[in-house]
């Protein structure tokens, strides 16, 4: 079941990076996460039939490139714009992922994306699944936390 969930997370993330950020995966499957601290970490929390959060960590120039691509500007976006862009991507990935996990009739409330440090999540939710995606402009860790057991996945 965990592998199915990883595939769903990977697919939702790749679709979002492609269509919102014009960024494309450089490998067909998950990549190894890079060493070192991320450029930024953002989180979107959700409540509904089950609660949890989706976290994205940006590496290797992803943060600035994503905002520049979304804005369509050659100038370097401000730090706030960069975090805003990553937060929006987290929001869209989470919004697309939840129905594929819980079914399309379930209703979830998504919170506002916020900057986050990993330590805040370390013990907060019972189970987590993460994937690493190498993109043509940086890379990202996408972590999906659920408060409780991973639910039976819907097709």
């Amino acid at each position: 079941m965990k592998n199915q969930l990883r595939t769903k997370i990977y697919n939702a993330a790749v679709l979002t990076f492609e269509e919102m950020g014009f960024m494309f995966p450089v490998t067909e499957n998950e990549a190894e996460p890079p060493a070192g601290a991320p450029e930024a970490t953002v989180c979107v929390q959700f409540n509904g039939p089950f609660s949890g959060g989706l976290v994205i960590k940006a590496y290797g120039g992803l943060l600035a490139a994503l905002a520049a691509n979304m804005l369509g500007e050659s100038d370097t976006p401000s730090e706030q714009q960069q975090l805003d862009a990553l937060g929006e991507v987290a929001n869209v990935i989470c919004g697309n992922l939840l129905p594929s996990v819980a079914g399309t009739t379930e209703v979830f409330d998504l919170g506002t994306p916020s900057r986050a440090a990993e330590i805040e999540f370390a013990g907060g939710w019972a189970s987590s699944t993460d994937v690493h995606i190498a993109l043509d402009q940086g890379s990202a860790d996408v972590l999906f936390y659920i408060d409780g057991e991973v639910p039976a996945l819907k097709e």
Partner: protein
Amino acid sequence: MALNFLVVDDSSIMRSMIIKMLRLSGLPLGEFYQAADGVEALKLIDDNWIDVALVDINMPVMNGEELINRVRENPETANLPIVVVSSEASQTRIEILRRKGTEFVHKPFSPGAIRETIIAMTGVSDEESIENQDIQCGGLDF
């Protein structure tokens, strides 16, 4: 007929992206107005002629659903075409929004998706939009 658009989203980068997509859509464009929440949006709707509102759902102060309710309750604005632009994918919630007379564009979206939805809602003819023009973005055809 050039269309005046109101883009309502608490994310400034998302508002910029939606406006970029509208510019790429080939639709006849008038003025763009921007609001970060429902309260700002209602003021802009009061003060300006808006042809189409593109509205996010999850926003602080006043969310998109309440904004839609307020617009529909006011006889002067009840028929304003509203496109919900959201990452929401629950069919239950989408159906509730559709019953309020809105259309829905799912994030992530393409200029083509916005164009088709707005043409269907406003009745602006295809001839008025930049028809048969190859619209490209990042090497991708739309």
